[in-house]
Every structure is written in C-alpha cells, then in structure tokens.
C-alpha cells in the first residue's frame, strides 16, 4: 500500500473534476470484522469525494443509521452477526431508490453476490481490495459503471436459462424478457471468458460502454418489492446460516 496516498489523491482529483462542486457522497460502511472495518474506514476517510456517515459492525446499527440519516452509498459485508447485508441493501433501496449499494465479499464469485444484486446491489468489492482500486471502483459505480466477472456472468446466464425454461413458473421470466439482445450477448461473451474489449469488439461497441450495460443488467435483475423477493433473500440467507 505504498502508493495509497498518491493513487487516492489522483482518484479524488478526477472525482472532483467530474462532479464539480457536487455534495460529497454520504457513505455507510457495514463490516463485522474489525481489522477490515478499520481498514475500509481509513481508506474511505481519505476519499475526498465522499463522507463516511458511519461504520457499523452489526445489522442493527446499520438499520438504525439508515433510519436516521440519508445515505447515498452503502458498502456492506453480507454475513453479519445479527443478520444479512441483503436486508440493509433492501432497506436502503426502499428508502432511497437513487442510492447505490456495494457488497464486500471474500471471493466475489458466489451465488450470494447474485442474491445481493437481486436485492439491489450494483457493485461488489473483494475484501483484500487495494485502496486505490476501492476508490476507483466506487467512482466507477457513481459514474454508472458496474463490474462483472466471468463467474458472475456464468451464474447469471445459468439462472436466466433456468428461468427461461417453459416448465418454470411464468412470473420470473419478467427479468429475462427485460434484457435486450445486446445485454444478453454481453453476458454470454463475458461468461465465456472474453475481456470487455473483446466483447465490445465483437458487438461493435466502445469498450467503456460495456460496464454501463452491466449496470443496466444488474438493475433489471433487481427483484421488486414482491413477496417472492423476500422469500428469495431469506432462502439465500438460510443457505448462509
């Protein structure tokens, strides 16, 4: 982390340039592991484009903060001692639909990340992410870009395929139908293992528009405030118990 200061500074500089005199991004951090929480809190404190509202170790604390204060960005671990990060994401999306949520995951290629995306998350971070990478990821997300790994793309493709089957109930097909052919092509390309540049080249897009499409895909994957969404979340939550 030798170059932390410099990189972070560069990041904020760009942020300032893009957003002008916009209000700083009010950020809430939820992470139960203390060393990690302290590390993320330190990095976020040094980010000039944002303001760390609070850093919580439990879901209860996080819910209390969400109740109390407006939050623009939630960065949350998923497994918490008293609940699941997905609950915090749902609360955030319900109170402030404009707010963004990112999940922190040790591996970031798991089904639970998809569950978080379906709850409304549009980004994810690895727990050992470098500080410059963390700031960059946040700023990318704020600029409308979402990341995707080939593992996540494969899981999404697989799940869309399962939902698309006629034997399944008709209701979940809503999301599948909502994806444009281009978005589907992007998902397939990434699931196969192509880079953003290769996918963009094959589809005749600019490399930088691929993450924009990804964010749209995530938004479309978000399950609405229906009872089945709650069920889905609790089902996945149970898997993690």
């Amino acid at each position: 982390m030798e170059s932390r200061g410099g990189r972070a500074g560069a990041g904020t500089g760009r942020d300032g340039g893009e957003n002008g005199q916009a209000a700083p991004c009010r950020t809430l951090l939820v992470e139960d592991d203390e060393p990690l929480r302290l590390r993320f809190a330190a990095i976020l404190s040094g980010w000039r484009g944002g303001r760390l509202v609070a850093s919580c170790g439990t879901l209860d604390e996080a819910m209390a903060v969400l109740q109390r204060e407006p939050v623009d960005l939630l960065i949350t671990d998923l497994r918490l001692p008293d609940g699941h990060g997905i609950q915090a994401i749902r609360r955030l999306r319900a109170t402030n639909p404009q707010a963004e949520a990112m999940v922190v995951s040790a591996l970031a290629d798991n089904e639970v990340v998809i569950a978080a995306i379906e709850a409304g998350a549009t980004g994810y971070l690895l727990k050992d992410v470098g500080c410059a990478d963390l700031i960059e990821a946040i700023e990318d997300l704020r600029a409308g870009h979402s990341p995707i790994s080939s593992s996540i793309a494969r899981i999404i493709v697989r799940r869309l395929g399962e939902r698309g089957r006629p034997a399944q109930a008709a209701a979940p097909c809503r999301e599948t139908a909502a994806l444009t052919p281009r978005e589907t092509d992007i998902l397939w390309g990434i699931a196969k293992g192509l880079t953003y540049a290769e996918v963009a080249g094959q589809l005749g897009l600019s490399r930088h528009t691929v993450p924009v499409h990804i964010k749209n895909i995530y938004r479309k994957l978000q399950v609405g405030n229906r009872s089945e969404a709650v069920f889905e979340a609790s089902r996945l939550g149970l898997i993690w118990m």
Partner: protein
Amino acid sequence: MDVGRRWLWAVLVVLATVAASTPLWLTLPVPDQALEIRQAEFTGADGAPALVDLPHVQGQRRAQSYYRMAYELAEAHTQQLYLFIPMLSYRAVIAVDGDVALDTGANSLIPGITLGVSALVPLSGRHLAAGRHAVDILLEAPGVARGYLSPVYVGTAQQISPFYRLRVLVLEHTRMMVLACQLLLAIATLMAWIYRPQESLYGWLFLLHCVSTASYAGLLADIFPGVFGWLPYAFTVSMSSVFILHIIALRINGATPPRWLHASVAAVPGACLLAMALGVLPARALLLGVVMPVMVVSPLITVAISAWGALAKKAQEAWLLLLPLCFFSLATLHDGALLAGKVDGPVFLSLYYRQLLIVAIAVILMRRLGLSLMRLDGANAHLKQRLDEREAELRRLHEEERSEAARRVRSEERNRLTVDLHDGLSGHLASIIALAERERSAGIESTAREALDDLRLVIHSLDIGDRELMAALSGLRERLEPQLKRLGVALEWSMLRLPEISGVTPAHALNVLRIVQEAVTNALRHGPATRIAVRGDTGPQGEALIVVDNDGAPYAGVCGGGAGIRNMGRRAAFLGGALGMEALAGGTRVTLTLPLRLSGDAEGGSPPDGRER
C-alpha cells in the same frame, strides 16, 4: 431380377394354360390293334330297330334302349379276350351270346350328375369259339343328358387294358380326386375362417366347397337307395355356388358385394326348391329351365367381374382368378351345349374345371398367407428397430442422468466447501491482510495475499465444467489485472483464438491456471518485466497453445529456471501437453501446448506437488 420374375410368371401362365385346357382338346386314344365294332342295331323307346353308327348319341333323355351288335372270330382263341367299351353313358347291362356279362352300375361309382364310364367285359368259354357272337347292350340314359355309346372293341389284354386303365384313371379316379381336394380345401378354409372370423372371404370359400359337394350326392346311393330321387334338389342347392363365386370374385377385387347378392345365395335356390317341393313346376323342367341355364351363364358374369377387377381396379389376385374362371365358364358352356344337344359326348367338364377354380383359390389363399407373413416379418423388424432405438435413447438418458447427478453432487460439494472457505478461511486471510497492513508488516501481508489468491484459484477451478477452460483463464485474468496494475506492469490478454478444449475437469483447470500463474510470477520475479502478454492460439496441428510472453530478461537455459519451471513441466505432462521455454529478442516466451481433448487421467488427481516458491 424384376425381368427374371416377369419371365418366370409368363412361363408359368403358359404352362398353366396348356395344362388347364387339356380336356378341351385332348382326345383319349382308342385301341388300334383290337377288333372294332362300329355299327349296331339300335332299338329306342319307340320300338323301331335301326342300324346306327357308333359312337351313337341318343335323341332322348332318360330312356332305356337296346343295342345289338356282333363280333366274329375266325378261329377259336385260347387266349383270354376282352370286350371293351371306352365310353358309355351312363349305365349299361352287357350280355354276350345271351349271357349277362357285366352291369356297369354294379362296379362304377355314380357321383350324381351322370358322366361317361368305361366298361371291360372278360370273354370266356364259348364266347371265344370261332364264329359270330352277338353282343346285347341295355343302355340306361341319364336323366338330364342323352345316352351315349362309343364304338366297342374286342381284343387281348395287351391290346385293350392300357386303354381301359387310362379311362378309369381319367374318368373315375380324377373325379374322386376332385372330391377329395374339395373336401380338403373345405376343411382348410373352415379352419382359416374359425381363426380369422373377421375375414369373411374364408367363410364364403368354405360355403362354396360345401354346396359344391352336393353334386356328389349320388355317391350316397349305396347307403340311401332313394338318393337319386333327391338329386334335382341337390343340384338346386349346389346352384348357390355360382352366387358365392360372384361374391368371392368381388371380395378378391377388393369390392364390397351388394346385399341382394348375399340374399340371392339363399333366395334363388330356396325359391326353386320351394317350387319343386310344392309341385308348381316339375323338378325336371326346373332343373333344365332354371338351374342349368343359371349355372351355365353365371360363370360368364364372374369372368366379367374378375376382368373388371384385374384391368380396372388393378387387383393382382383377380388375375389369378381370371384364367381358371375363363376355363370354368368355357366348361360350363360346353356342358350347356351338351345338354342342349349341340355337342356330342357324355362327359360334363365343369365338374373337372371346378377343381381348377379350387386350385386357383388355394393359390390366392397361400399368396395371402405368404404376404401376411412377410408383412409380419417387416413389422417385427420395424418393431425391433424401434425397440433398439428406444433402448439406445434410454441408455443415453440414463448416462445423462448419471453425469447430471454426478455434476449436481460435485456442485453441492463445491458449494458447501466454498461456503466454509468463504466464511472461515478467506475472511480470516482478508482480516490478516488488513492487520498486516495496519502493522506495516509487508511480508505477512504479501504472504496472506498470495494465500488468498491461491485459495481463490482452487475454489474458482472447482466450478469449471467441460469446455470452460477459457472461463477459468478469465477468472485468473480478473485476479491478475489489479495485481499487475498495482505493480505498474501492463497485461495484454486474448483468448479469442484458443480452440475449444474438451474433457476439462476442475483438476485440469487448476493445473493450467497454476502453470499460467507461475509463468506470470516468474516474469515478475526473474525478468523484471513491464509488459506481459498472455494469449491463446491454435498450433500447426490444430493443438491448443497458451503463450505467455514477457519483455524481461531472456530465458537463459535450464539451470536458470529451477524448481518452478520443473513444476510447470510436470503439470504440463500431467495434462498430456508440453511446456516450452524460449528466449525472445527482448524477453522470454513460455508456451503451454495442450491436446484438444484432455484425458480423464487427471480426474480427481492432484498435481504431483504443491506450489514451490
């Protein structure tokens, strides 16, 4: 083949025609060595004697008449001589010199409708003495046809008996053979009908044979002496056979016979029988005026039906019936002419030609049997093929099910493992990284980072299925990208040209990933590179290549590589591929060559050792 069959059929048809028409043109030979008597004094019913030539056909039906003739012997014969009458109709009492020598009614079977018989009278004792001997023949004419007497011969056994035996064979034995065949086929069709009642053709054939045998009612004369009085009724019953024949011809054509035709099978003979029984008309008049004309004309109609079937409806079996029907109707015409006195001769041919019809019908039945057996074979073969296909399909589904179940078990196992590692080990490692960073303990931090990366490599490879090597490599790229970026090293990556590799298992994927990871690590460690290019490619023999180029120090031979490179080589060999190291102008190239199908040996197996550092 087809032409050969056509010729075979043509030859068969010609042979059958020749054989079938024999009775129409063949005249049986008469003794040429023997003494022939060609004249006789005929005394008919009217009583006036007249000299007539033999053969003689009487003008009247159903009459008794006398013939007187003589033979003269120049000298007394010591050898046995015979008097031979080749043909008479239908019964004769023969006396020589006033001694009754033979009554044909005593030793000839009269089936019913009267037909010609031969007579052989052994001459003995004084009949052989030299001089003139008188022969008296009392001839009983049949009821419906006229009396007939052929020339008479006198000769030795050698001169006469071959001709006599031939006549007996043709006239009497054949007649019985016809009956035997008819009974046999009656039983055969009855059996066929019992087993296939839905096919009414068999029933009609059986009925045809039954009513036809009524013509033979006269055979019962020995048991029921009064049977000759019933013969007109029997003939009337057998008249229904002509209607049955119409029905059979229509069925063979594939047409449905009209109801009235079915009705007339019973109605027409029934009406005649009723008329006879009530005495509306005399039986003889009915027989000659109704029954006989119907039986003569009807076969012509059947011929027309079969010809229509064969020519217009293209029914193949109608052809088989047509030729015998033609002969049969010729025979009935002949018999009609005989009755009307237009043709001389005592033999009714239709009885013999009925046999031909029966043979034709038997041929048709056998053909149907053969065809249905062939269809059965075809259906069996088809069913067997369907069964084989279905079995193969089931086997395939079973295989799929098994591999799907195995995949599911693996996936569940992986999920469980991932959850454990995620919650436990990887969280702790991330925590260690954060702590080490805070404590500024760079060694611990980098070791923990490497451990976490390696853990991700293992977990990630567990999810790799067949043909997903490119996705596995992509996961490695996603992990390398931020690391190299942090170090300021450019990474170029393209797997677009990597051919698809099949047979990939998680163990294969992990080995490939470790090789590429090692190549990148080496590039960073040994040749301080600023640019690393990883690309997939297709080799000259179509094999898969993964090439890792760096712009660091050129590779300097085996000793420079050390344990890391030996490990990479072992892993490559384990995958059934090869590892190449070469020096570039400004850097080093590592080439991993892989076959397009990875063998299953690595399934579940581990690389020979852990990572060497």
